[in-house]
Structure formats: structure tokens, C-alpha cells
């Protein structure tokens, strides 16, 4: 009697263990798949310039990386320029495409037109935003526009840009009612 009981228990345990193992295998496979997708997205994300400028029509660099990983064109990042396209083409094993979203001709003296057949054009000059502080009226409209919290200020107080944090995304330019924000080459400020 006891023997029968024992064998039942052993069989039961074995069955439970088998099902558990199968479940774990399934979970592992799923995990690996997501991991791979994540790692591609991650490596795309690492190549992106992190300007968070949304010129690619996605709200930031991370969403664009996700989109590229799932099949979006990899030529929509103007701050990264042709150099980025080359790197992404190599990473994703895709064709090199010409840049689609040309930099807006706001007041960029140094926008390089694409020269087909002459290799990648030099990366655009790194710019940062700079508030002309005498003219700032303290409307606080540029503060929520900044994707990286690089503008400090309060209502009716002068605002200023934290130069180290600014990515030069130009998103603060349209909200400013008095046009007191300039884009200047980063080199001027160390």
C-alpha cells in the first residue's frame, strides 16, 4: 500500500517537473526573442545623437530607434547626418539612403547639401540655443518645449539655457514670442 502511494507521489512530482521545465523553456525562448529585438533597438539608440529634436517626426530618439528596429527608414535624422546613415546601414545591413529631412534653414550658416558620389558630407556643426537675456520677457513658454530640461527660469523672470545640457534641437525657437533665442555653434562656449 505504502509502495503504491510512494510511486504515485514520485510520478506526480515527475510530471510537475516536466511541465515546469517546458514552461521555462518557452519563457526563455520568448525572453531571447525580446532580448534580440531590444538589443538591436539598443544599439540603434546608442548611435543616435540624442538631440531629441523630433525632426524624424517621432517624439524623441528612443521612439525613433524603436521604429527603425521595426522597419522604419534609417535616413530621417538630420542631426546625425550622413555619418549616422552610414553607421546604421552597416549595423542593419541595409542600403545607404540619402537623408530625407534636411535641416530647416532657420539661421544655419553651415548646412551642407548632400553631394552624391563624394562620400558622406561632414557632420553638421553642433549648435546650442542661447537666450538673449536682455530681451527675454519671462513668459516661460520655452521651458515645457525643451525635451531635456535644459532651460531654467520662472514666470516673469529671465530664463537661461544650461549650455552643457542643450542639444541644439531648436524646439524652443517656435514658442518664443519675442524671438530672443539664438542658435550658436557650441565651439564658441568651450
Amino acid at each position, binding site marked *: 500500500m505504502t509502495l503504491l502511494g510512494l510511486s504515485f507521489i514520485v510520478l506526480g512530482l515527475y510530471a510537475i517537473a516536466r511541465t515546469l521545465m517546458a514552461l521555462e523553456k518557452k519563457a526563455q525562448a520568448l525572453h531571447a526573442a525580446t532580448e534580440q529585438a531590444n538589443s538591436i533597438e539598443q544599439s540603434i539608440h546608442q548611435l543616435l545623437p*540624442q*538631440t531629441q529634436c523630433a525632426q524624424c517626426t517621432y517624439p524623441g*530618439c*528612443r521612439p525613433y530607434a524603436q521604429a527603425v528596429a521595426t522597419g522604419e527608414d534609417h535616413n530621417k535624422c538630420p542631426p546625425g547626418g550622413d555619418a549616422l546613415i552610414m553607421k546604421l546601414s552597416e549595423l542593419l545591413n541595409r542600403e545607404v539612403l540619402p537623408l530625407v529631412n534636411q535641416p530647416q534653414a532657420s539661421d544655419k550658416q553651415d548646412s551642407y547639401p548632400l553631394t552624391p558620389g563624394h562620400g558622406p558630407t561632414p557632420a553638421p556643426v*553642433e549648435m546650442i540655443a542661447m537666450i538673449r537675456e536682455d530681451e527675454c520677457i519671462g513668459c516661460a513658454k520655452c521651458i515645457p518645449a525643451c*525635451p*531635456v530640461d*535644459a532651460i531654467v527660469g520662472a514666470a516673469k523672470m529671465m530664463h537661461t539655457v544650461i549650455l552643457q*545640457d542643450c*542639444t541644439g534641437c531648436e524646439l524652443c525657437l517656435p514658442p518664443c514670442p519675442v524671438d530672443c533665442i539664438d542658435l550658436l555653434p557650441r565651439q564658441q562656449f568651450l
Partner: protein
Amino acid sequence: MTQLYPMTGGLLLPTQRAIGLKPQALTEQPPRLVFALQQRHLRYGSVVKLGQLVFANQVIAQSIGSEPIALHTGLAGQVTSIDDHSIELRTNSNMPTHKQPIPVSMTTLKHTPLAKGLRELGLLGLGGAGFPTALKIHRIHTLLINGVECEPLLVTDASLMTYHADQIIQGLYQLLTHQDIQLRRLIIAIEADKPQAITAMRQALQIHTWSLQPELIIIPTRYPAGGERQLYQQLFGEKLPAAVKMSDQGVACLNVHTLLAINNGFNGQPLTHRLVSILGNGIAQPQQLWLPIGTPISWLLTYCGALHEPLEVRIGGPIMGQRIDQRNQSITANANTLIVDLVKPTLFEQPCIACGQCEPVCPEALAPQDLIALIQSQPQQQDQQLVEQNLPACIECGVCDLVCPSHIPLHQYFGQHKSRLKHLADQQQRAQIANATYTRRQERLAKAPKPNPKPPIEASRFTPSQPLSSKANSTTKLKTNLAKAQRLYREAQAALKQAEKKGLEPTLRKVYESKVGKMHDKVQLAQTAFDTEKGRV
């Protein structure tokens, strides 16, 4: 005797020093001074205005940053031009020196925090790198005085130690008495081929009684034994990794000229002058001059009697020095030597033959021939491999150039790529920060409550939730309300009458009349409210 460890690589070069060159003052003033505002480690911003008269020792610019370092003028004059790159003064010897209290005087430097005092005195390393001294002496336990001027031809530090040893040692002594400096070890390193300097320094050391005995260490002559990292290796027996600075290890390395400037600082004199050797076969005779910082090199060449032939001017030593365009440059704090040579035929660069002569001489144990092969080959994966091959550790000493049979200017290539890699690393770091702030912001925005539409007006706001404290109170309130309404009614009537006197247009009259009507209604309302309340009481 302290033990010395061997240095990696290096070369024994003929030094050909013009020993015995005596420091001299200028016999005439330069007519103008040009201060370079963009230097290797600092960017200055002007604090003077165009046309302003400045005194000698006055602050004319400050470095940009939260802890500014001052730049002083050594001569009085008038500011004639200011731009992003320079401030120009027309000097005037008739003006007195700065009358206002000099930023730090002997007594105050003793009692102010040392780093702050040094910043206000504008002290930079005078050995050749021009690194701000205030940033070096933070939390140190060992002070290393560098008198190892290892490049051939250089004599500035040697003659300073020979002729001004007492001032250097005085500066050291004063520095040690400062409250911010607590040392465990004090080392003075001098190169073996400067016997006069060694004797002079030994004698000067005996003047003072020391609480911490300085160790005078003689470093064997070998290029580049005087580099900070090379000295560290020779004294402490281990190599500093490329990313680690000497000050991170609690060791500060100060040049002897910097110590002399610190001594001047304790006497209230900011950094305005420095000793410059002018050497080479392009001038009549070698000289050593105390020059105000900002002296234009074109003027200096005429003063020293430079030959009227095509000249090649270098600031710094013959190996590591920078060739400059003589017309518009001026003396900066890190210009220890000016080498004026007749233009030599340039040796053309030949392809690398992989002879491997550059490897044993490299003091940082790099493989220059592998590096140059990488630089000259595939540009795609270059960066990663250059970092792996430890290019950032290159100190640009140029020994590899000296031994290269193909005359490849190796250290120039390395310098370019080093700064490029540094720029890339900076960019990457900024991208990481931007990514982090962006993610934080997204999380914050997701958490923040969405702005609700205005809450519906509650009825309870209009009915008093609490019973009135006393009836008498409510009657008085109603009475004042009534009085107020009556007053406003009277005022409205008066306004209408006055307007009628002046003559009114019909539309305006309607406005006035409606106002009077409204006030009348209000008075009636208040009256009834008051009456009913009174009746209840």
C-alpha cells in the same frame, strides 16, 4: 637616498644647453600688449571696456566658468581693441600701477583659501602646459617640484634655479605654511645635467628650517624624463593610466617657475611676467628676458635683433614646441622658450617601413607603428581600435618622430587623433546625459496629473455651511450692505446729474441711466433683506 625607478622608453639626446644665460629685464617697454583669450585649458572673457585706461596689475579678463581665474596686465595702458580672441592694449609708461587694493596681498593669501587666492592671482602652470595651479593643489599629500627640463636646448628653469633659487624656495616655504596644505612628502626633482642649479637649490634649502624635510632628487638625463607622468613613474614605480590625473592620486606637480610666481603671489603680485629664453640661429645672440605676458612676438623679434630672413618660430622646446605664425601671436603664460631658426628644408614623409624603432623609445609603452598604420588605413573601425591601442595615453613627446627613419611626423598625427577622440567621447557623454534627462522628463510627464477641467460649482459654496454666530451680527452686516448700496445709488445719481450738466449724447445717457436703475434695484433688495431679518429678530 630615495629610490628611483626606471622610466619606460625615452632617449638620451644631446642637450646643447646655453648654460649661463642670465635672466634680464627688458630695457624698453613693448608699445602694445596682446592678450590671447583662448588658451589650451581656459577661455577668458574680457572685463574691461574699449578705450578704458588700465593700470599695471589690473584684472582685464576672467576665465569663463563658475570659478573664474583672473588675467592681469603687467603694464599700464589703454584698451584699443577687444574681440573673441584677444584684448589689445596700447601701453603707457606714465601711468601709475594699480592703486586699488591688489586682490590678494601677502597677509590675505595666508588666510584666504589657497585655491581662491591662486585663482585671483591668475596663477597658471608656467612649465609649458599652462594648467591652472588652483586646480592642482586640491587635497594633495605629496608636492613634487619639477625642475627637470628635459627637452634639448631649454634653459629657462635651469637659470631660474641658478639665479633665483632663494625666491623659489621662499615660495615653497610660504606654501607649506599655508593652512590648506598638509603634506606627507615633499620632493624636488632636478635633472642631472644642471649642476649649478642643484648647488644653488641645495644652498637655498638650508636657509629655512623645515617641518617636513624636502627631498632633493636628481633625475638622470633622458628625454622625456620631466613629463609629469614620467616623473611619477620614476618616483613611485608605477605608471599612471591614461584617464587618471596626477592630482587624483594626491600628488601635485609644480614647475619651479610656478613656485616663483607663488612667492610673488604671497607678496601681493599677480602673475603678469614670465621668464622667456629666446634661442636659435635666427637671432643675433640668445637672451633670457622677463617679459610681460602679452608681449607681441613680432616686436620681440625686432628687440632681440632677429635676422631679416625667412624664420621659423617655435614656442616651447624643439620637439614638443608649436610652430607659430609670428605676426599675430604673443607671449602667453606657458611660453617658456622661443626658438627662432632659419627655415630648414622640410624632410618629406615617407611610408612606414615597420622597422619598429619607435616602440622601445615610447615612454608610454605604446606601439606608434601600429597606431600610424591604423590611422592611415581604414577609417571605419579606427576609433574603437585606437582607443584599444591606448592612443589617449600618448603624451605627444615626439621621441617616436626623432627615431623614425621615414620622417613621419608621428606625434602630430597622434595629437590630431587624440583631440578628435576626446571630442567624440565628449559628444557621447553629452548624448548619454541628454538621453537620461529626456527619459526622466518623459517619466515625470507620464506621472503628472493631467490638467482637469474646472470643478463644477458646488451649491454649498453659496449657502453658509455654518449657522451665523449671532443674529445681531447678521443684521449689522445687512445694514452695512444697505448703506453701501445706498451710497453707490447716490453716487450714480450724482454722476448722471453732472454728466447732464456737461451735455450728454443719447447713447452715453442710456449707460448712466441703466447704472442708476441697477443701483436702485440693489438698494431695494438690500432694504427688503434688512427689513425681513429685523422683523425676524
